[in-house]
């Protein structure tokens, strides 16, 4: 094996309520993997448990291994985890407005990332490297500014610069563009892609935006109710979804109309097409049904669905559904 990240049987729970169950996930070297799902599907918790930064009363079990780190990450003590974080594994968070320390100069915050892990020989060298990193994210001359003097997009680029500072083997981005203006999104996404490509870092990209996954990722995992319900290459999953939830998700997004372009426009204007939605709401955490987590919202559900659907396919491409789309309908 040479996967950068290997997650096996990851379960995250709070007071005996499972929020994430049996997640299997691998990311190969330099690979860009997407993790999609609605809010509450457990995607952010999955990322935080990889990083070991779950809130106090939330517990993770299972196995998380990272290449280049000779120990298990789940349950590792703070001393060992702090050597991994920011060095082998870095993260960009959703909310750029609050992710930076308001009382510290931007340059110092980037330089600190390198000083903590002693990847630069001196404070001076770290500052020079920080200036270069900031230039790389197209923010020249911001070393001495404070976060409040920057816009949201600019701040997110600072966070990206400090995440990339130590050439991590894996970069995790948790909805990095959700809080940004549409106009800035493309630029930040582009900088993320170029940043990981230049360092040959692997990327785990979390989002609920299917269009973003389609542009950024090679492979995708779909999460619902704390479980991975489908995975595979992006083109495969988006064009031939097997799990009924994936199918609904893709139908509900305007991915197709956006992709198919002008051909559809005539049709859309003549009879405004109402976007199909998935009936019902995402249940609150811990109140998903037994068996198939999606069955209470699924039009194809039968009694069989009361049992947990087995994983069909290979570890990197497959689905967990009793009545998959594209098969003879039940």
């Amino acid at each position, binding site marked *: 094996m040479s996967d950068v990240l290997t997650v096996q049987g990851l379960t995250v729970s709070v007071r005996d309520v499972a929020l994430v169950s049996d997640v299997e996930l691998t990311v190969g070297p330099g690979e860009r993997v997407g993790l999609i799902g609605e809010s509450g599907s457990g995607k952010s918790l999955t990322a935080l448990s990889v*990083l070991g*930064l779950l809130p*106090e*009363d939330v517990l993770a079990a299972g196995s998380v291994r990272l290449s280049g780190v000779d120990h298990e990450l789940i349950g590792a003590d*703070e*001393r060992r985890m*702090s*050597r*991994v*974080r*920011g*060095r082998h594994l*870095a*993260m960009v*968070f959703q*909310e750029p407005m*609050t*992710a*930076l*320390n*308001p*009382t*510290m100069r931007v340059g110092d915050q980037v330089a*600190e*990332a390198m000083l*903590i*892990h002693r990847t630069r020989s001196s404070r001076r060298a770290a500052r020079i490297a920080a200036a270069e990193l900031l230039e790389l994210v197209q923010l020249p001359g911001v070393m001495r500014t*404070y976060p*409040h*003097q920057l816009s949201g997009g600019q701040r997110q680029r600072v*966070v990206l610069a*400090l*995440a990339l500072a130590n050439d991590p083997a894996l970069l995790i981005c948790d909805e990095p563009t959700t809080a940004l203006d549409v106009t800035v999104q493309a630029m930040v996404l582009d900088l993320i892609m170029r940043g990981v490509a230049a360092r040959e870092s692997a990327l785990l990209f979390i989002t609920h935006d299917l269009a973003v996954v389609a542009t950024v990722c090679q492979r995708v995992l779909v999460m619902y109710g704390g479980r991975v319900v489908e995975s595979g290459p992006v083109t495969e999953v988006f064009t031939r979804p097997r799990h009924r939830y994936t199918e609904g998700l893709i139908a509900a997004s305007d991915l197709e109309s956006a992709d198919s372009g002008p051909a559809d426009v005539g049709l859309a204007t003549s009879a405004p097409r109402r976007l199909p939605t998935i009936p019902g709401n995402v249940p609150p955490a811990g109140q998903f049904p037994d068996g198939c987590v999606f069955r209470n919202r699924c039009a194809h559900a039968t009694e069989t669905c009361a049992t947990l659907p087995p994983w069909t396919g290979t570890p990197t491409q497959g689905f967990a559904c009793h009545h998959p789309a594209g098969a003879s309908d039940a």
Partner: protein
Amino acid sequence: MLLRLIERTAVLLVSLAVSSVLVFGFLAVLPGDPARVALGVNASDEAVAELRRQFGLDRPLTTQYFDWLGGMLQGDFGLSYISKAPIGPQITDRFQVTLWLVVTSVVIALVVAAPAGTVMAARHRQLSGLALSALSQVGVAVPAFLAGILLIMVFAVKLGWLPANGWTPPAQDPGMFLRQLVLPALSLGLVQGAVLTRYVRSAVLDVLREDYLRTARAKGLRPFPALWRHGLRNAAVPVVTVLGLQLATLLIGAVVVERVFVIPGLGSLLLDGVSNRDLLVVQDVVMVLVVAVLVVNFLVDLLYVALDPRLRVTR
């Protein structure tokens, strides 16, 4: 930045002016005739008239007010109605004594509150945090003079380690000065520390929830260094505010503690002034205390700017 400085200075000057009118109005106008008050109801009308003439109390009130204010600005606090001695030198002497006491107790309060509040916040779900929290709640309920009495009972009466009361100027005998300073400063500082601990706790709790602290952890900082490097300055802002606001309470607390430990500070001067019915002394001391509070709060306001860069730009 400059705008803020100008604005704050204007607020300070107006506050000083208004409070001087309040103090003058309350202590010089409201009692009717300070000379009568000083000499008592049984004094002869001639004696009262004599005192009024001597101290210019027969002049119009506005003249008296500006005379008092102008004098104070030049360091002339007037003469005592009773002893006829100048009040200024007394205030200077006594102020130093009170300053020692208050500054030492602020240091003690901070030394107690900063670590205790941080531990309480970091362990707010564990037993140790809850125990500390309960302890601080008890500390808040103990008034400084009671703490003083208890400390005397333990360290002066039972153990005999420290003197029960008294005051020696530091220049005269530094050793004795320190020994006599310990108990009063502790009684004021520990109680203030208990109050402050609760504010430190909530400030640190707020900071712990901040995203930038998670960013710091994601960089590879361990929990305590992350809090130290990224949280401290941010948590300091609300704590400094409270410290500034508490100064008024602390100064007046010193008045009572001085009484417990027989310390010749501003408090004793104030209380002596009240019992001697020497209203000008009372008026001067109250004004000095109020000026001290207002000036310190002005400085605290400026300190924010040093702590929080967001306030440096004028938006």
